[in-house]
């Protein structure tokens, strides 16, 4: 141990150095975002709760009940019921997403060939009642308001 080391340790050199770092944080700018008051908009690819997309002109759903999203879903959280419509095409009767199972991997959006289902920017869905997490077709169509991206662009 040289004289320099003794001097450094007796003047608490490295401790003062560390304290200068925290001291600079003390006066510096703060990074807190006061969440409910301020919100950070999610990025375009953000994977929030799904929505079903309808055609803005006709109001019809893009979905034609092909079951591809229900099949690719790794946690089996999509339940689709369909029947044959009057013109012979498949028609969507019910579309249920069980959010208690959903892992937000985005595979449904990615697999869908019609751009009918999409992940939105909605992430505030906590609730006191588990039944609120069973999302029905109407809820999902309504959720279009949170859609924040153009699907066909990718």
């Amino acid at each position, binding site marked *: 141990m040289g004289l320099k080391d003794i001097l450094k340790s007796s003047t608490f050199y490295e*401790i003062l150095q*560390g*304290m200068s770092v925290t001291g600079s*944080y*003390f006066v*510096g700018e*703060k*990074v*807190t975002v*006061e969440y409910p008051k301020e919100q950070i908009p999610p990025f375009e690819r953000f994977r929030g709760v799904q929505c079903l997309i309808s055609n803005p002109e006709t109001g019809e759903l893009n979905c034609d009940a092909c079951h591809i999203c229900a099949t690719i879903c790794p946690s089996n959280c999509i339940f689709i019921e369909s029947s044959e419509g009057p013109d012979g095409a498949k028609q969507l009767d019910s579309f249920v997403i069980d959010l208690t199972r959903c892992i937000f991997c985005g595979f449904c959006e990615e697999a869908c060939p019609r751009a009918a289902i999409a992940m939105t920017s909605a992430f505030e869905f906590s609730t006191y009642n588990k039944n609120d997490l069973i999302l029905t077709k109407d809820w999902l169509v309504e959720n279009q308001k949170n859609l924040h991206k153009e699907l066909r662009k990718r």
Partner: protein
Amino acid sequence: MTEFIILIIKLILIIAVAVGMVPFLIFFERKFAGFFQSRMGPTYAGPWGSLQSFGDMAKLMSKEDLVPAAADGPVFRIAPYILFVPAFVSMTLIPFGPMDVDIFGYNVDLVVSSFDAGVIMFLALGSLAVYGPVLGGWASNNNWALLGALRSGAQMVSYEISMGLAVVGVIVMANTLNFVDIVDAQAGGFWNWFFIPQLVGFVIFFVASIAELNRDPFNLAEAEQELVAGYMTEYSGMRWGIFMFGEYVNMVVMSAVISTIFLGGWRAPFEFLDVIPGFIWLVGKMLFFIFLYMWIRWTLPRYRYNQLMDIGWKIFLPLAIANLAVTALIISVV
């Protein structure tokens, strides 16, 4: 009779100051912790979150007071207060201003008790406070709490010694054990304060006081990351709150003592600043030390148990003795 009434008033005022400071200290601790971590700290309750600790208190009071079935009930219940009470007693020794002040026509000493063995009294009360954590940890009947209690006991006892020896240098210089006289010995400007001639003693006393207060980097008794919560593991609700409260009261007392012994107590750094009441100076100095305690806590990691003991016995104790010897030599020669 008037003297007795004045004494009662002074006592109430002292306790009110100590107790009244604590919620704001806790608020400052949380706010400053936020600032040191480049966060904002509490912001919701009251302006800038300043009523945060009152909210905490309301929460703690409304919680269930849980006593473990296998705990030693009475000891478990009384332990928090053992930590709490000696701190108040120490507070009575601190002078807040000059003696014989004329207030509303009464002659008042701005100290509760000008006790001739004040320093000894303070050290003795400090040792008494050890019983709180030790008994609390032992009575909890929990291995983590027991470990915390043992650490706390050993730590406080061993730092008491270097702390005491660090003060002796000042006692030798001031030639008194009375806090009032120690302050008087530092009259004049800040160049007469004892932290300059007694720099080594000051540093030792300051570091040992951190250990006495159980704060980072010496908060081994709680050591959240190691011992869950140390001696407080089984405590909940307001009993836990009283432990916390006691720690902050101790912090107030310790900062008051350290400013009295080494920084001239209520005296202003320059004579012409004496127009500002001594009380304000004392509180200012206390706040400075409290801020320092917080800054250190939110910067440094924690020592290990045996390293803490090494520092206490192998570095601080010899240093304090050497400091005392040198001081005594110089005093006797000069």
